[in-house]
């Protein structure tokens, strides 16, 4: 490590080596996110919000969840959301029925799913080729020790604002979270979604059998949604904590102003 760089010195104990390099480059506007990351980030944002709204709307036509292959109002759900429904066949306890929105909701849901899957494939494919995952997301082995992970967790729990050098790289918890979302939660959403399709499962019956049934697939689709929404909320909260304007600038234009991570004010890059 080059000790002549004070930025790299501070907080270097919880940064991976690539971060140290990045933070050592002095410039007012420094490159932060590649075009691949920025374009796929916002495309996924649009697709995810469309999926969330339309998916929530579809759930309202039957806000009950079951395990196994079958489930309907004649059967006991494991989860009843106790929401008003857009069908009068669902016993909700409410004295009214919401308007049916499933037509456009289903159209939008599948169109947005195509957009999300297409974007995801593009991102993962080019991400591997361009070394995005290796460089930015796979944590350094040294960061995976109990001490490092615990330290990072502690800093998060204390709501410590990230040091400015952290703006140039993801910390270890951030890396693990993004990897979880990209390689576990999103694939699970696609899998459980397709497992509900009568057409898809006619060709690939294992897709639903391995999960334990069509209604189990539907329940899991809903549960994973909750995790993704939690991720979204924390993600946006963290952007605010870390400095909304600069982080948004980094994800839109690709560049960030050095030394502005926590305050939002521009300061000379090397202090």
């Amino acid at each position, binding site marked *: 490590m080059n000790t002549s760089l004070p930025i790299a010195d501070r907080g270097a104990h919880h940064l991976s080596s690539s971060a140290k390099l990045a933070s050592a480059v002095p410039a007012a506007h420094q490159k932060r996110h590649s075009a691949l990351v920025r374009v796929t980030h916002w495309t996924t944002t649009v697709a995810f919000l469309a999926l969330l709204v339309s998916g929530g709307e*579809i*759930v309202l*036509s*039957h806000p009950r969840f079951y395990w196994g*292959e*079958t*489930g*309907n*109002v*004649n*059967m006991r759900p494991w989860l009843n959301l106790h929401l008003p429904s857009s*069908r*009068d*066949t669902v016993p909700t306890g409410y004295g009214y029925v919401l308007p049916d929105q*499933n*037509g*456009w909701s*289903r*159209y*939008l849901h*599948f*169109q*947005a*799913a*195509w*957009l999300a899957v297409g974007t995801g494939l593009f991102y993962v494919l080019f991400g591997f080729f361009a070394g995005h995952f290796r460089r930015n997301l796979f944590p350094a082995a040294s960061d995976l020790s109990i001490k490092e992970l615990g330290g990072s967790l502690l800093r998060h729990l204390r709501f410590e604002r990230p040091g400015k050098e952290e703006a140039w790289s993801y910390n270890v918890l951030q890396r693990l979270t993004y990897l979880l979302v990209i390689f576990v939660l999103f694939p699970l959403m696609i899998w459980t979604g397709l497992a*509900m*399709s*009568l*057409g*898809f*499962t*006619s*060709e690939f*019956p294992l897709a*639903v059998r391995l999960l334990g049934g*069509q*209604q189990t697939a*539907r329940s899991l689709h809903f549960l994973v949604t909750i995790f993704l929404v939690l991720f979204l909320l924390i993600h946006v909260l963290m952007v605010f904590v870390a400095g909304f304007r600069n982080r948004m600038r980094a994800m839109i234009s690709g560049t960030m102003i050095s030394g502005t991570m926590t305050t939002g004010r521009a300061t000379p890059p090397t202090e």
Partner: protein
Amino acid sequence: MSNVSRRKIITTGLAVAAGASGIAVAAKVAQHYGLIPPDGGGLYGPGETLTYAAQRLLTRHSMAREFSRSEISENPFANEVDPLGDEFKRLQAASFVDWRVTVDGMAARPASFSLAEIRRFPTSTQITMNGCEEGWTYIAEWTGVPLSYILDRVGALPQVRYVVYRSIQPDWWESIDMADALHPQTLLAHRMNGKELPVPFGGPVRLRVPRQLGYKSVKYINRLTLTDNLKPFGKGLGGANPDGGYAWYAGI
């Protein structure tokens, strides 16, 4: 700097033009192979076309999952229907002896079959899932005459691309392509769980399209029309559900 941006503009322009003509060619090819659904236009057309084309390329001959007898739902749910009209009640009072299913359109021998005839036709039995677009499901055993048998019997012309089927209920109809119409699991079902098909589940006769959602399995069928073009029917989207804003292809 201006040279670079000019080059960039030209490159981008060429890429956009190439992309646009690529999509146009893809659309032509898809049209030729029958991969564009009748509701493939409009705001959600791209997604709908991708879904239908992908399913037709992957699942044209696949069989809907079949279940064991022990998996048949003890409490199947009969979704609500519009109130049944006087004509239906009159036929029901006479145990449906006068119920007929008329087959017309592009057939060499258009015909009208009585319920007794339909019940005498060769049957196929399946234990399959009925899945609703709302999210609920049940499993039942269905028995009926394969639609392909009917099409064969009336001499469906080679240019037929869709079968339009109607309920006795006014303005309630749907259609399927030949991949589903000729599919061995697509039935004119008249028995359920070993008994005559109960009225709440579509008796005396309903269509069963087990690779698609329940709204394609129209109840109280009394007319089939063979056609090569869905444009003249309703809004031209291929069914009462598509006319009401739902997708024509309901395999997902």
